[in-house]
Each structure stands twice: as C-alpha cells, then as structure tokens.
C-alpha cells in the first residue's frame, strides 16, 4: 500500500531521516516508534510533501513526489496532527465536513443560492461511528481535548481514506480513555483503512499494532511484530530502556 524507499530528509546540516525503507501492507496497523527527534514526524511530513526529500514514496503504486499537498486526500491519504489541529471556530459537524472536502464538489452558483447539498448520510455514519452524534452542533472551541482528538480522527476518516497517518493519537489522553481510543483505531482498520501510527505510548503500540518499525537518529534500527520488537536488544538499548524490558 505504502512503499518508502531510501528516504532521506535534510534540514540544513542535520540529517533527520537517513535512507529509510518502510513498507506498510494493506489493512494493517503499522506503528513507527523511536525516541524524540528520531525523525518519525518528518517521515509523515515527507509523505505529505511538506519537506523536501530524496528517495521514493509510493502509494498504491503511484509515486507521490511532486504531488500537490491537497491532492493526497483525493487519492486516499489523510492524517492527524501531533498537537491537535482542529478548527476552533467551527462546529463538530463543520469540522468533520471539512474532512469530506476531497470527496465532494462545489458548484459556486448553487452555493451562493444555498442549494448545494452535503454528504448527509456519510456524515451521519461518521458521527455515529465515533460516538459524536450528540455533539454535532457544538463549537469545537468549548470541547475538551480528548473529545477533540476524536473529532480529529472522525475528520480524517469521513473521506473514507485508504491510509491514515496518526501522529501521537494518545498524547494527552488520560489513561482511562486509552481503551476507547484503542477500540476506535482498531475499528477504523476493520472498516478497511490502513493505519500508519506514530506513538510514544508503548502499551497502545504493542496492543494494537500488526507490525512495528523502530527509528533512532533518522535510521531504521528494527522492524517486526510487537513481540519481536519488545525483545530486540538494540531497541531496548536505544529506546525502551531496561525497565520496561523487565516488566514485559
């Protein structure tokens, strides 16, 4: 589904990602983990053509290089953001509808006359899927962080994407709600969306991922199933630390 070949990203003198190869299979939850500054978010930004890079990124057999950023949603790739990027002045409904932008069309004159239709059914389904129906008319600005994280997921999901990149979905979510989050991500996968996940919460990663790639200093240091990763010596040394090793 997503094939990254020999990806290298440089900022000035710093090499943020060095010769990364990564393949995400269709229908899996693939986690990308590693210490801060290892280059995970940079990989997302390269996929979204936000940073210049060398190497190849192919999605469903199509080379992404040079594709305008907004076209990605059209071909079925969306994302969420590390520090939550919701539109505060819009209602939950409007926020989610923005996510459907790439799958709907504008007819200017109809819009001026107030006659353009909304993807009502898909919206209702999505609101229902994420349990947001009752919050539909609420302005995002007044909702708590955890709920907004869900809105962000719904916004990415309404366009029925083939691949979603999730950037630290569990950050700032209280432990008590992490179970729900796990369930939501798994149901998104079960609905046919492939997921590439950057996350620090090891428990979440180990619980739901089908495969895990570990990065350190811009390079891939390990890849495998969660079980293989948590037993990998290099990973423990660079990232997990002794303690969790002993615990798991």
């Amino acid at each position, binding site marked *: 589904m997503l094939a990254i070949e020999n990806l290298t990203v440089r900022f000035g003198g710093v090499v943020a990602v060095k010769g990364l190869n990564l393949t995400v299979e269709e229908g899996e939850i693939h986690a990308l983990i*590693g*210490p*801060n*500054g*290892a280059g995970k978010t940079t990989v997302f930004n390269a996929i979204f053509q936000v940073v210049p890079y060398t190497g190849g990124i192919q999605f469903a057999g199509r080379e992404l290089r040079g594709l305008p950023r907004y076209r990605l949603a059209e071909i079925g790739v969306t994302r969420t953001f590390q520090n939550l990027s919701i539109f505060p002045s819009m209602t939950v409904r409007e926020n989610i509808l923005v996510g459907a932008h790439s799958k709907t069309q504008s007819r200017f004159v109809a819009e001026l006359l107030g006659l353009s239709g909304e993807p009502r059914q898909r919206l209702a389904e999505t609101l229902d899927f994420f349990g947001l129906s009752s919050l539909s008319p609420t302005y995002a600005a007044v909702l*708590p*962080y*955890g709920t907004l994280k869900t809105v962000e997921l719904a916004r990415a999901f309404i366009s029925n994407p083939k691949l979603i990149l999730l950037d630290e979905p569990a*950050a*700032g*979510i*209280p*432990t*008590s*709600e*992490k179970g729900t989050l796990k369930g939501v991500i798994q149901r998104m996968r079960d609905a046919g969306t492939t997921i590439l996940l950057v996350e*620090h919460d*090891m*428990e979440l990663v180990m619980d739901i991922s089908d495969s895990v790639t570990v990065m350190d200093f811009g390079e891939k240091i390990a890849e495998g199933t969660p079980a293989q990763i948590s037993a990998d010596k290099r990973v423990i040394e*660079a*990232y*997990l*630390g002794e*303690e*969790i090793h002993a*615990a798991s």
Partner: protein
Amino acid sequence: MLRVDQVVSGYGPIDVLNHVTISLEKGEIVAVLGANGAGKTTLLRTITGLIRVRKGSVTFDDKLLNGLSPAEVVRCGISHVPEGRHIFPDLTVEENLLLAAYTMPRSQQKSRLEAMYTMFSILAERRRQAGGTLSGGEQQMLALARGLMPNPRLMLLDEPSLGLAPKIIGTVFETLVHLRESGVSVLLVEQNAKRSLEVADRAYILVTGRIALEGTAHDLASNDMVKQLYLGGIQ
C-alpha cells in the same frame, strides 16, 4: 514549607480548582496526578501567581503568596518549569539561563551559570547555540537548568516527561532524585503516574479540580482505584 489551603481558582467564569488543599515539607518530592483537564497545571500556575487565587491561601514558609506576581514568587525561592519546556528558540542557551535569574545580581548569576554547566555538561557544550536547535531531550535539560538557575528551595515541575522518549524520561526522573538529595523540594505534576510514584514521597490525586485521594506514594501505588485509572493495570 508549602501550604495550599482551600484554594479556588480558574479562568474566566470557570473555577478549575475547587477548595484544593495540599502541603509539602522540606526535602520532599510530592506528586500531583490526574487526567488531562483535572486542574494540575492550574494548580501550579496558581502557586506561581500566573493565575489569581480566588479563595483560600497559598503560603510558603509562612509567607502569604496570594496576590504576588510571578516575579515576586520566584524571588521567594520557588521556580516553575512549565509543561512543554518553553525554551526561547532564538536566544542562546546562555541567554535562556541568564533570563531565569533575572533579578539576581550579576556576580551571583555568573556563579549559578557555572553551577548549571557543571550539572548539565551538554548545556556547557551548547552555550552559544540557539535554544531552538537543541534536541527534545536537551531542551528538557535546559528547561530544568532554567528552573534551577534562581537557586530555588522549591521547584514546580509540569509534565517533565511529556513527549520524551522512555529512555530520556528515565534520565529526567533520576535528576529529580538528585535534586531532592541536594535539598531542593519538588512538586511534580505528571500524567505518567507509574514513574512519578516511583520517585515521589507522597502524592495527591486530582479529579476535576478536587483532591480525590492522598497518601504516601507507596500506598497510592498499591491502591486499586489508582491502579485501574492511572496505572492502566500493567505493572
């Protein structure tokens, strides 16, 4: 040493803290745990005078802190390391540090600076480098060093582990233990309950602006409710 007594405070029309009472003795690490939005950060901001105390009192060594500006609170010997580090990105490491000792006389600033460079050798290497060019872990070290610059007796730490790799988190918590040994008391606000309870002497659990539970770190770590809600059942 620090007494927060029946404090009410918040933003705009909302009271975030509802009659919160906590205390901290000299040489202690006290953790305040709770979910996002429970009021942990608000508590720290209230102590440092970033937010007004609406009801109740905050005292430090029997001195009333109510109504003091953050600058005055720092002068009393309390420093606050905010969540998210807040390094000045375009200022050098050294400028970042010096600003943390704004009210100190120059000679004292110099000696504190040297002390910080001894404690955090990576910062000495990077003293002329802009704060924004440091890595996440280095920035957290700089944030801690900034907190220590004014030679505080009490340090308030807001989510020092947030966004850091597990390995670096370990280093951060080790630093806290060193601090306690050198006589600095620490009030620690964390979501990472497991790690916090390992280093803390005592802890409070904050639930929607109220203290729901308090006790020694050891007791809380074995409390069923805490286990289920904050330790996620894995031990």
